[in-house]
């Protein structure tokens, strides 16, 4: 039996664009996390997807690290942190937003925030 030829890297980059969001999805648990990837970003540019993805990795690793050190149950479940449910260095109420938005609007956003997590 002959060994299969290695994939041509040009074609592989194109295939990556199409396939990167596919594959077996493990339901996220406290010990396994899945970092989703915005499909539109991938379509637009592989390079951006890679860098962006790498940042997400680092953030998720920090979270996993925190999980291991913390008492089980204390660390928030995926999707309950940050802007649009991302995990990262940006706090829930970013200082920039606070400076731009009127105070009453900001308060309302804060009140509504828990509902959007559903």
């Amino acid at each position: 039996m002959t060994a299969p030829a290695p994939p041509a890297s040009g074609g592989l980059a194109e295939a990556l664009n199409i396939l990167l969001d596919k594959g077996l999805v493990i339901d996220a648990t406290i010990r396994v996390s899945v970092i989703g990837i915005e499909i539109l970003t991938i379509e637009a540019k592989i390079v951006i997807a890679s860098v962006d993805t790498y940042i997400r990795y680092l953030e998720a690793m920090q979270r996993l690290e925190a999980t291991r050190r913390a008492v089980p149950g204390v660390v928030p479940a995926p999707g309950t942190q940050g802007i649009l449910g991302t995990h990262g260095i940006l706090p829930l109420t970013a200082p920039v937003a606070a400076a731009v938005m009127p105070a009453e609007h900001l308060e309302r956003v804060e009140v509504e925030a828990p509902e959007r997590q559903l």
Partner: protein
Amino acid sequence: MSLHLFGVVRAAHEVPADRNIRLVVLDDLAAAVREAPVAAMPHFEALSALVATGSVVPVVFGTLAESEEAVRADVLAPRADGLRAQLDRLADVVEVHVYLRLGAWTSADTALAPVGALAEQVVELPSERQEVRRAFLVPRRQLATARQAAEKAGGRFAGPLPAFSFLDERQAPASRWGW
């Protein structure tokens, strides 16, 4: 230590030596993992290298596990039978892609018929403008023949790839964010 997951293979799978990939074994199944996270392209290249030596059920890109124990308990054990069935189904076939730019009087079906004749299954992939993109599930031993047929038709060929396009529907992502 966080483990970056590539996919599920048989415990006896021959792992490429040069990519820092190792197997976390549970009975006859194993998850191919790496200590440090990798970016999209190296991830995809490693998966394709794994496919070259046997059946792989790819895990969605961006899956991290806290420990080997978590891989066994949360990834392999809960769906062991389903994984075995998928690995069996993909044992002798690999996914390949053909991208064909259409001319004014080219029919993709006619041009790609020789590739299609080799394939067990064919899936139309999302494409843009004047291009047809198709995924074919072809027998491993027909890989070279498929490549020749695709290139003869004027198409660009990529493969062997992990069989992303031919996984069970139930295991497709629930949302674009994957959670």
